[in-house]
């Protein structure tokens, strides 16, 4: 019988940033594909709303808390074991021209977008919470990897940093047959980008979208690529940065 390696139905997956946007949609897609999930987010009500949209509710665990807090990170670690996959999708954005940067803004974005996922990853690996053959997926961005946008300096820096460290992690975990890849989406409509778009007019937005041969993406478009990276179908892929941008970067 054909062994469908695209399956993720026996897998246990931890998702950060699961209460909204790409993380939320990834949780919904993976639950429909049969995976067992630990969904993490800061907002309990939003996380519960996501839970109502999951299939096989009894298979999943909700974890509410801010992962930039060490104590909360340790709590998460204590309820976590035997992971086959980790999706690090928690992230924030703030549009700020370089001239208006300050320490707090830099620290705020770097802490959520870079430090928190790396420290979670560090603790999961050190405590052997990820199974052999497991897959780590970092949500990076084309911003800071391939492209630059005015006002997005620290966000781009945080995503570029994630993309860089992902490759080092990939090397360090390869001996355990664990894989680490980063996914670099272009513009995806989500609460995160909606917030960033407040500083862009409708005219500028339409012009920007016209640069995407396939139009802007949806969280679901990204979720299916994540599912592939979590599945054994991608078992030879590690240290890769996957560009998922509807053709924006080739245009």
């Amino acid at each position, binding site marked *: 019988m054909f062994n469908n390696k695209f399956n993720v139905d026996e897998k246990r997956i931890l998702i950060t940033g699961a209460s909204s946007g790409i993380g939320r949609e990834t949780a919904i897609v993976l639950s429909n594909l049969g995976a067992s999930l630990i969904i993490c987010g800061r907002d309990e009500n939003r996380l519960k709303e996501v839970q109502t949209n999951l299939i096989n509710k009894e298979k999943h665990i909700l974890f509410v808390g801010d992962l930039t807090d060490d104590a909360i990170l340790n709590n998460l670690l204590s309820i976590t074991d035997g992971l086959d996959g980790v999706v690090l999708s928690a992230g924030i954005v703030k*549009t*700020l*021209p370089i*001239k*208006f940067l300050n320490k707090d803004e830099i620290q705020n974005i770097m802490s959520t977008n870079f430090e928190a996922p790396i420290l979670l990853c560090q603790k999961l690996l050190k405590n052997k919470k990820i199974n052999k053959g497991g897959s780590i997926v970092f949500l990076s961005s084309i911003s800071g990897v391939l492209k630059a946008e*005015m*006002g997005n300096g620290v966000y781009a820096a945080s995503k570029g940093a994630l993309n860089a460290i992902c490759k080092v992690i990939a090397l360090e975990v390869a001996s355990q047959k664990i894989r680490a890849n980063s996914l670099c989406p272009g513009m995806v409509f989500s609460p995160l980008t909606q917030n960033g*778009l*407040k*500083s*862009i*007019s*409708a005219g*500028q937005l339409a012009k920007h979208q016209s640069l995407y041969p396939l139009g802007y993406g949806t969280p679901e478009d990204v979720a299916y690529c994540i599912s592939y990276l979590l599945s054994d179908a991608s078992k030879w892929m590690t240290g890769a940065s996957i560009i998922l941008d509807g053709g924006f970067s080739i245009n």
Partner: protein
Amino acid sequence: MILDDFIKKFALQYDDMPNFFNADTNFREVDGWSSLVALSLIAMVDEDYHVELTADDLGVCTTVKDIYNIVLKKVSIA
């Protein structure tokens, strides 16, 4: 909130300070107006007045005073 201060702070967002810039100036017609100046204006309002000015707000404004009035209104209800 003082109109003269706001006008000065607004003018500083252009790469080259406009020669002529007052409450009645149509800010889009000033040389050097760009999307980055718009982003900088939004960031200045956030930093100095602690309210959120959006692209939609800018869209309904023509003069410097129009923007000042929106910021003033937001400051008063903040």
